[in-house]
């Protein structure tokens, strides 16, 4: 039996404002419990919300980045439910009139194929606090520092057909958010959180199957694992004659499984109604244009520019623009050394290889763009060969900082002195009479042997072009 998976993602992004959505409390991560929970955040009687203008700007910029309809009149609503991490007993959200309406996102899969994923909407809402379950004499502790932090909830259409697409979508979203600078996108700290609506159906069917919502997915890797696990669970269930029930399931990364959240089984009735403490947020074209004017170049546009301006391949350009930090890194290197193609090679092959191996983000790269740019410049100006450059690169990764000093102190400078190379060539010829005879007898392939020998003696420092030229000349004498 052949199955098709249908996935829609709800992504909560914490917006990187200094203060909360409706209060002047700090949003900084990691403070002592409740030191950033003030009278409004604690829902003291008589307190009222006042909206942070930066949240609106960030939401609109996201909308523009995904070609979405921008809500010129967005309305906040109260979503009512009781939970200790929700001090007011309602969450201020946007139900019918979100700030960001229908939009779309282009994803590129590993095989180079492209797909456009629909975005249903993105609305502004408040984050909740945190329940800490360490034991306080059988009690839970509530920290409301996070309560009221602005969130943008981005809801996708059920357009994703497998876990890999879901990951690609999430990564693209992550990239756009970082490009826009509207969130730090840190999944492990919860600044970007993902819930997945997953269902399966037999291939060819047009109706969607019953879906489950998987919560608490906090890394790209877990998204793929959680979805794959849930898909398999649903297929097994149906094939065994069972039925999927609509429910919320929690992903447990330690056990790599999803389990039903029994506490949320009772059907919620959120009793949404327009938030009377806030008025409609009304914006005009001038506001939207002003936001647009402050937006940076986004990944798709930057990718096309890299192809055009630097003559890079589509593939390299796509890899380099997958994150703003990487694209910035690349452009700094290219500018410094003046060779974009060589820079692209070094960044995509050597640098990314290194980062992958050490599981680092580009921001944490042990090699700075200036160092790499300088290194490539030294190849360009013949100070070192490309091969020696790898040695220098290695030294940089081990903590040495000055490219020229590394070259100097280790004596890696390329030998370009014609006299020295001539002596090297003479020595090699003198030491290998048999091979000379073979070469002169017409065996061209032996030429490589001479180059190798000369390089070995020079510890790789001989300028390859000069060496080649002199060797040919001397051998044909």
């Amino acid at each position: 039996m052949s199955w098709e998976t249908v996935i829609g993602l709800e992504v909560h992004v914490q917006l990187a404002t200094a203060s909360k959505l409706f209060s002047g409390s700090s949003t900084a991560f990691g403070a002592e419990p409740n030191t950033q929970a003030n009278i409004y955040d604690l829902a003291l009687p008589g307190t009222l919300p006042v909206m942070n203008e930066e949240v609106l700007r960030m939401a609109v910029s996201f909308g523009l980045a995904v070609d979405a309809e921008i809500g010129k009149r967005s309305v906040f609503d109260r979503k009512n439910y009781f939970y200790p991490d929700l001090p007011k007993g309602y969450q201020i959200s946007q139900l019918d009139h979100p700030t960001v309406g229908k939009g779309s996102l282009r994803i590129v899969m590993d095989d180079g194929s492209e797909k456009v994923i629909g975005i249903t909407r993105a609305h502004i809402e408040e984050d909740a606090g945190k329940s800490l379950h360490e034991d306080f004499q059988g009690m839970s502790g509530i920290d409301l520092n996070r309560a009221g932090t602005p969130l943008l909830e981005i809801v996708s259409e059920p357009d994703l057909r497998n876990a890999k697409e879901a990951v690609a979508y999430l990564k693209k979203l992550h990239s756009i958010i970082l490009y826009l600078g509207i969130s730090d996108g840190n999944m492990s700290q919860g600044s970007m959180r993902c819930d997945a609506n997953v269902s399966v159906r037999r291939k060819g069917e047009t109706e969607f199957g019953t879906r489950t919502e998987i919560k608490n997915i906090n890394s790209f890797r877990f998204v793929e694992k959680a979805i794959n696990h849930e898909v398999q669970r649903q297929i097994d269930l149906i094939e065994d004659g069972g039925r999927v029930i609509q429910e919320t399931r929690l992903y447990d990364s330690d056990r790599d499984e999803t389990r039903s959240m029994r506490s949320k089984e009772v059907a919620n009735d959120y009793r949404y109604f327009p938030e009377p403490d806030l008025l409609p947020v009304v914006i005009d074209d001038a506001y939207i244009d002003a936001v647009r004017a402050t937006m940076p170049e986004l990944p798709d546009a930057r990718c096309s520019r890299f192809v055009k301006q630097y003559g890079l391949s589509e593939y390299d350009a796509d890899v380099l623009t997958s994150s703003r930090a990487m694209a910035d890194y690349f452009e700094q290197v290219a500018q410094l050394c003046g060779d974009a193609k060589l820079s692209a090679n070094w960044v995509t092959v050597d640098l990314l290889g290194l980062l992958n191996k050490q599981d680092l983000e580009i921001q944490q790269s042990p090699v700075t763009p200036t160092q790499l740019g300088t290194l490539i410049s030294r190849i360009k100006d013949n100070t070192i060969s490309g091969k020696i450059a790898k040695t220098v690169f290695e030294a940089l990764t081990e903590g040495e900082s000055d490219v020229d000093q590394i070259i100097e102190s280790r004596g890696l400078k390329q030998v370009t002195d014609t006299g020295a190379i001539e002596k090297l060539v003479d020595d090699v010829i003198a030491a290998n009479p048999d091979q000379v005879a073979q070469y002169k007898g017409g065996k061209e392939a032996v030429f490589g042997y001479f180059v190798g020998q000369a390089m070995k003696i020079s510890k790789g420092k001989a300028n390859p072009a000069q060496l080649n030229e002199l060797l040919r000349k001397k051998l044909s004498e």
Partner: protein
Amino acid sequence: MALDNTDVEKIAHLARLQIKQPDIDEVTSRISNILTMIDQMQSIDTSAVTPMAHPFDATQRLRPDQVTETNQRDRLQQIAPATENGLYLVPKVIE
């Protein structure tokens, strides 16, 4: 619109209120009376009317993104019923 006791219990649960069994009939009857009074609204057709959430067509003012609050935890937790290590305590939250 008349309610029965089950409806009232459901509503009470949504609102996290407890109604003692001996009181339930009276509560149900009083709320039903209120709903009957409210149902006078259905005497007119309002299909062409736009709902009005606020008396005026004012729009939301925005404040600059500035941190204006400082740590007041000690003062604010003086009025809290139960705290420990700066946390508000509640019976164990089960997920």
